[in-house]
C-alpha cells in the first residue's frame, strides 16, 4: 500500500504478469480495431447510473456509479463571503454614485452587474476537496486530481448573452464589489479506486455543479446581499435557458438547457495507433500515453472548446518487463528464439520483440495527441456524446 500511495501515476499497478501485459497491449493495438478486455468499442463508455440532488443539505449534488462498482458522490456548498479590499476603499459618495448608477441600469439583464464585478472574480473562491479511501487528503493523488479538475473549472470563460455567464464561473460568483460566493466542492469516492478515478469524479462534479443552485438575490447593487428565503426561487449556478432547438427534444422531460456548462475532464489513452476512451485499470496499465482532456461547450458555436490537456504518468512505466527468449537463459539457444523478430512500435518508435512486454518509457507523438484532441472535440465526437448523455441525467 505504501508504494501505491506514493504513486502519483494513473493508478495502482495491477498485478499482471508481463505476458498478460503483452497480450493486452497486442489486442489493444490491433490497427483500426482494437479488442478491449470488456468488449467495448474504443469510444464506448462503461454504462453508468447517475442521479442528482441526492444530498438535500447541499446547494447541489450528484452521484455517479460505474458498472464496475466504482461510485462517487459530490456535494457543492456555497457560502457568502466578504471580498477583501472591496468597497471599504470607496468613500460614501462614491458608493452612492455607484448604487445610483447600477440602479439606473437595472432594467438591463443581470449580466450587466456581473460584468462590472467580473474582473475581481478569483479562482481561489472555488475550493475542491477530494477524498479517496486509503489516501490521506494531503497525498499526491487527491491533491493532484483536485487541482486537475479545479483548474479548467475556474479558468473557463465564456461570452455573455442570454443564459451566458460572463467571466465564467469566477464571474458568476461575484455578488457585488464587496461580496462574493465561495464554492466548496467536496468529492467523495465511495469505492476503492479500481481504475484511475478522474473520469468518474469529473462526471460527478459536472452533474453536481449543473444541479447547484444559489439563493436568489433580492438586494440591489452595492448593498449588503439579502436573499429570498424561498429555496424554490433559487437560481442555478449555471444558468438555464428554455430550449429552442428541436434537436434536444429527444431528451425526455428536458425543457431547459444550459448554454454554459462546467467542463468535463475525459481520460484518453493511446495504445499504439489506437485511441481509447474511458479506459479501465488494465487498459491503463499498458497505455503508451494517458491524457486528461478537459472540454466544455462553447456558447458561441455549437462546438466544443478545449480547456486543458494534462499528461498523466502512465503506470506502464513501472511494470516488470518481459524477457525475450533470446535473452532468456532457460531458452537460450533454442530454435524458438530465432523465430522472434524485432519490430518497431509505431507509436513509441522503439524496437520491441513481438509478444514480449516492455515497460513504456513515456513520450508521445504529436500526431497522437492531435488525434486524441480531435476525437474529443469534433462534431458528433466523444465529447459531445458525453455532454449530451450528462444532460439527460440532469434535469430534475
Amino acid at each position, binding site marked *: 500500500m505504501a508504494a501505491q500511495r506514493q504513486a502519483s501515476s494513473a493508478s495502482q499497478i495491477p498485478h499482471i504478469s508481463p505476458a498478460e501485459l503483452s497480450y493486452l497491449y497486442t489486442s489493444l493495438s490491433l490497427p483500426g480495431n482494437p479488442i478491449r478486455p470488456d468488449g467495448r468499442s474504443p469510444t464506448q*463508455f462503461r*454504462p*453508468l*447510473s*447517475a*442521479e442528482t440532488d441526492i444530498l*438535500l*443539505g*447541499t*446547494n447541489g449534488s450528484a452521484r455517479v456509479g460505474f458498472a464496475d462498482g466504482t461510485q462517487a458522490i459530490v456535494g457543492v456548498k*456555497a*457560502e*457568502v463571503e*466578504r471580498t477583501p479590499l472591496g468597497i471599504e476603499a470607496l468613500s*460614501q459618495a462614491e458608493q452612492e454614485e455607484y448604487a445610483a448608477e447600477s440602479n439606473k441600469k437595472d432594467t438591463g439583464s443581470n449580466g450587466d452587474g456581473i460584468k462590472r464585478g467580473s474582473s475581481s472574480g478569483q479562482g481561489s473562491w472555488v475550493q475542491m476537496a477530494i477524498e479517496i479511501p486509503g489516501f490521506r487528503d494531503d497525498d499526491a493523488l487527491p491533491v493532484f486530481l483536485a487541482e486537475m479538475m479545479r483548474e479548467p473549472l475556474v479558468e473557463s470563460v465564456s461570452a455573455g448573452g442570454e443564459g451566458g455567464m460572463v467571466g465564467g464561473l469566477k464571474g458568476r460568483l461575484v455578488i457585488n464589489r464587496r461580496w462574493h460566493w465561495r464554492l466548496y466542492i467536496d468529492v467523495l469516492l465511495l469505492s476503492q479506486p479500481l481504475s484511475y478515478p478522474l473520469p468518474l469524479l469529473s462526471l460527478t462534479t459536472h452533474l453536481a455543479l449543473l444541479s447547484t443552485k444559489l*439563493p436568489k438575490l*433580492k*438586494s*440591489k447593487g*452595492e*448593498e*449588503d*446581499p*439579502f*436573499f*429570498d*428565503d*424561498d*429555496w*424554490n426561487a*433559487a437560481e442555478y449556478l449555471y444558468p438555464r435557458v428554455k430550449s429552442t432547438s428541436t434537436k434536444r427534444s429527444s431528451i425526455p422531460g428536458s425543457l431547459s438547457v444550459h448554454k454554459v456548462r462546467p467542463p468535463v475532464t475525459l481520460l484518453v489513452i493511446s495504445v499504439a495507433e489506437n485511441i481509447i476512451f474511458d479506459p479501465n485499470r488494465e487498459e491503463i496499465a499498458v497505455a503508451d500515453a494517458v491524457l486528461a482532456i478537459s472540454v466544455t461547450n462553447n456558447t458561441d458555436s455549437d462546438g466544443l472548446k478545449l480547456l486543458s490537456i494534462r499528461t498523466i504518468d502512465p503506470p506502464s512505466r513501472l511494470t516488470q518487463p518481459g524477457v525475450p527468449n533470446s535473452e532468456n537463459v532457460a531458452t537460450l539457444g533454442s530454435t524458438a528464439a530465432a523465430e522472434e523478430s524485432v519490430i518497431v512500435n509505431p507509436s513509441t518508435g522503439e524496437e520491441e520483440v513481438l509478444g514480449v512486454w516492455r515497460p513504456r518509457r513515456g513520450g508521445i507523438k504529436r500526431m497522437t495527441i492531435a488525434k486524441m484532441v480531435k476525437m474529443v472535440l469534433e462534431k458528433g465526437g466523444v465529447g459531445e*456524446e*458525453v455532454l449530451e*448523455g*450528462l444532460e*439527460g*441525467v440532469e434535469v*430534475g
Partner: protein
Amino acid sequence: MKSLRRDFSSDPHTANVTSKVFVRSTKSGKVQKIVRELYLRQDIPCSSRLCTICPAVAPEDANVAPFVLSEQPAGTAAFPRGHYIVPDTNALLNGMDLFEHTGAFYDVIILQTVLEELKNQSLPLYNRLLALIKTDEKRFYLFFNEFRLETHVKRGQDESINDRNDRAVRTVAKWYTEHLRAVTKSKKEKSIPTIVVITDDKENLRKAKEENVTALSLENYVSGLEDADKLLDMINESREARHAKETSGELFYPEYYSMSKMMTGLRAGNLHQGVFNVSPYNYLEGSIKVAAFDRPLIIMGRHNSNRAISGDVVVIEVLPKVQWKSPSTKIVEEEIVTKNDNPDADDNEAVVTEREQRALQEEVRQAHGKNLEGRPQPTAKVVGIVKRNWRQYVGTVDSSSTGSQATGRRQQNVFVLPMDKKVPKIRVRTRQAADLLGQRILVTIDAWNRDSRYPTGHFIRSLGELETKGAETEALLLEWDVQYKPFPKSVLDCLPKEGHDWRVPVSKDDKGWNGRRDLRDLLICSIDPPGCQDIDDALHARPLPNGNFEVGVHIADVSHFVKPNNAMDLEASIRGTTVYLVDKRIDMLPHLLGTDLCSLKPYVERYAFSVLWEMTPNAEVVSSDFTKSVIRSREAFSYEQAQLRIDDPSKTDDLTQSMRTLLQLSKILRQKRMDAGALNLASPEVRIEADNDEVGDPLADVKTKAMLATNSLVEEFMLHANITVAAKIYSTFPQTAMLRRHATPPPQNFEELINQLTKKRDMRLDVSSSGALANSLDRCTDSDNPFFNTLVRILATRCMTSAEYFCAGAHAESEFRHYGLASPIYTHFTSPIRRYADLLVHRQLSAAINYEGEDGRATIEGSITRNRLEDICRNINYRHRNAQYAGRASIEYYVGQALKARGEKLAADGVDSGIEEDGYVMRVFENGVVVFVPRFGIEGVVRLEDFVLPGDSTNRSVAERRELVTRRESDFDPEEYTLKVAEKGHESSDRTMCVELFQRVRVNVSSVKEEAGRGVGKRRVRILILNGK
C-alpha cells in the same frame, strides 16, 4: 451513454418522509440552505367531539389536549347545521379582533401552516392567536396539518408559497369534511357541521368553488352574522385601502428604504437605528437616541418622521447641516393645530397643513436667531421602520370629524383622537359613528400608507361612557398595557387546595419544616401603610449577650407557593408587578396568596425567608445569615401607630424596645448611606385616601405624602437586606443573578438644568458623582420659597435614567452600581408578593444557601438560563415602568374628578371659581409655561389665554378664554427663561404679566369641559395663572 435513476416508488416508507427546504440568512451574513425532514403521521386528531376514531388513535403519551371542537357548533343563516371555521392567514391578519370577539367565531380550526405564516408576518398577532388557542372558551384548535399524512401538501413545480398554503387550507377543509362524514356515518347526515374556509384571496375562493370547498370572504361571512354592523367595523382597514388606493397617485410621504439598503447603511454606520420618541409638548417633534451619539437626534415635522409612531424602532439618516435646528420652544398640540381636518378628504391633503407649515417656519426662525447656547442641533429623518410597536389605543371619536350625516348607518370616516398625545389621530371607518360619540373606545392602527396623511385603523370595542369610572379605569389599564383580566382557571389551580384554611404544619417532622428555622419566639412585627393587606415584610431586633444586636428582616416566602414554570409562575412573570391605582389594585398573584397565605399577618404562623444580621450598636454588620423560617408576627402597625408607640415613653415592653432599637440602628444606617453619596430624590407624589364619603370636600382626600421616621426605619432595613442578598446571589450566580442597577447619568443630561439654575438663581450643581450631586442639591434652597428645593430635586430626577433589572452577566461588575442609593450592588428581595423580580431573587437565594425545600428541588428551581432571565428582565422593566405611569395617571384622573366634584358642588351655589393654590413654573415655552402644583401633584400647561392679566376676570368659560388667545401676545426670552404676556395694543400698560422659571405663582385650578369645537366633552384640569411679577 446510459444513465439510470434509482427508483423509490417501491419503497413504502417514502410517503411518510418528506422535507421542507428553505434559505436562512443569519445575522452574521451567512446564508444557509436548511432542510428539515418531516415524518408524516396519521394519528394527529381532528379534535372534533363528533369524531369516534381520533380519540382512540391519538397517541396517549403525547399531551393531546382534550377535544375542543363542539359537537353542536353554532349555526348561522347560511349554515344551519353548524360550522367549523378554517381561516387563512390573511383572514387572521385582517380580522384578529373579530376572532377575539366573544359574540362570534367559535369552533375555529387554526392550521399550523397558517400559524407559522402569521408568525412571519406579525409577531403580536401571532401571540394573540396563541393566547386564543390556549383559552378553552373560544374552542380554537391548532391542527398540525403539515404533519398529518392526508393533509400534508407538497409544493408543486413553479407553485408560489402562497398558492401552496392556500391549497393546504383547502386540502384540510376537504379532509375534515370527508373525515367527519366517515366517522359520523351511523348518525344522521344532518349533524355534520360545514367546514367553512375564510379567505380574502379571490383566486383561492375560485379554486375552492371548483373543488367543492365552502369558502367565504371575511366580509361576506361576517355580513351573515348577527350584529354585522359592529363586527364589520372590526375588520382591518388596510386591506380595503390597499385595493382602493392603488390608482390614486398622490403620495405624501417618502418611500422607505429597502431592507437590504438599510442593513448596508446600518452596518456601514451611515444610518442609525433607535426608538422613535415624540416630545410630550410638541407632537411634531420627535427624538431618537442612537448608540452612535451621546445626545438624541431631533426629528422635525411630519415629513421627516415619515409615518413613524412613538415607540416604533426606526432607521434614521442624519440630515445635512443646513437643516439642523434647535429643539422647539413652543407647545404644539395636534388637537389645536389640525382642528379642521376632514377625514374623508384625501385629495387636498398636504402632509403639512398650512397651519403646521406656519408652526414650522416659526421654529426655523427661532433656530436661526439663536446664539451660542441654542446652537442648532443635528436633525435626522426616518428612512425605514425596523419594527412597528403599534398597539391598541384608547381614544375618543373627534366629534367635528363625524360630519353632518351622523345618524345614518352608512359607513363613514372619522378621526379618533388617542388619549396618548404622542400618537397622531387615527382615521377609522365606522358604521356606528353616532353611537360612539362621547365614548371611550379602543382602536388599533392597521397601516399607514404613503398616500394617507394619517394612519388608518379600525374600531375594536367601546369601553363605555367618557368619565365613567369603569371606562376610565379600563382605558388607563389598556393604555399602560396592564394585564387586568381575572386569573384564568389554570392559574387558580396552582393554589394550595386548603385555600384559606392552609396552616403551617404543626408537626416539625412535616416536610414543610425541611430546612426551616423556627423563629416563632422572636418578637417580630410589621410596619406598613394603613390598610395594607399584602404584608411583604416584618422586622425584629434583640440584644445579644455580647452587647451587639441581632436584627432580622423577614420576607413573605412566596417562592414556597409559586413553583417555577407552572401556570401561576408564568402569569406572574408576565404581569411582573402589582399595579396600584387609587381605587383598585391589580394583583400579580391571586388574592389568596397575596393577602392571606403569604402575607405576614399578625398573630398567625407564616413561612418566611429571613435575613439575620449581628450588628454592633454602631450598625456595623458583624455577620449575616439567610434562612427559610417560620415566624409569628406579634403586631401589624401602620407607620403612624408605630411612631406613636415608639414615642410613647410609658411603653417599655420588649416589642416597643426592639422597635426603638431598630429605629436607632436605621438612623445610623441612613446616615452612612448619605455619607456614601446616596441621593435624596423627590417625586411629585400625592396620596389619595379613598375612603371618602359624599359629605365634605372631595379634595380633602388628596394628601401629599408625609414622611415619618418609621417610614425610613422600614426603608433602611429593606435596602440593607436587598444589598446583602444581592451580594450573596451574585457570589453564587456570577452570570445569572437577578440584580438591579441605576446607571450613572451622563453629565450632559444635566446641562439644561445646570444652566437654568446658574442663570436664574446663581446656583451650581455638581454632577461629578452622586455624592457631589446630593451635596449640591442640599445647597439649592430658597428661603422665600421652601418648595424650591423639592422642585429642583424633581427636575434633577428627570435628568436621570431609570433604574432597571438586569442579569449579572449582561454588564461588567463596575456597571452594577446603583447611582441613587450609592450602592455598588443592589437587587429587589423584600416584596415578592407584588414584584416578580423579588420572587426570582428568592429562588436564587434559596439555591445559594442550599435550601432543599419540601421535595429537594429548590436548588434546581433557583437556576435559570441567562436568555430566559434577560427576557424576564426586559418584561418586568417594562411592566414596572408602566405600573408607575398607570398609578400616576390614576391619581391625576382622581384629582381631576375631585376637582370636578368640588366644582359641581360649588356650581350649585352659582359660582364655579376653582381653587387657588401655589404653583411653580417648571418650564417656559414661547407660548406658554408648565406649572407644577404640589398640592395636587399635577403639572399642567398654561397657555397664553390662561394667564389672568391684571384687570381680567377669573370667571370665564373655556370658550371665552379661547377667544382671548388672538388678542394676546407674548415676549419670550429663552436666555432668561422668562415669558411676558400682554394684551395686544396694551404693551406698555399695566395689563401685562411676566413669569419666569422656578417662580412661585398663585394659580387657579379647576376642572373644565370643552364646550365647543374639537374634542367636545373632553375634560381637563385647567390651570390659570393669577399673578406673576
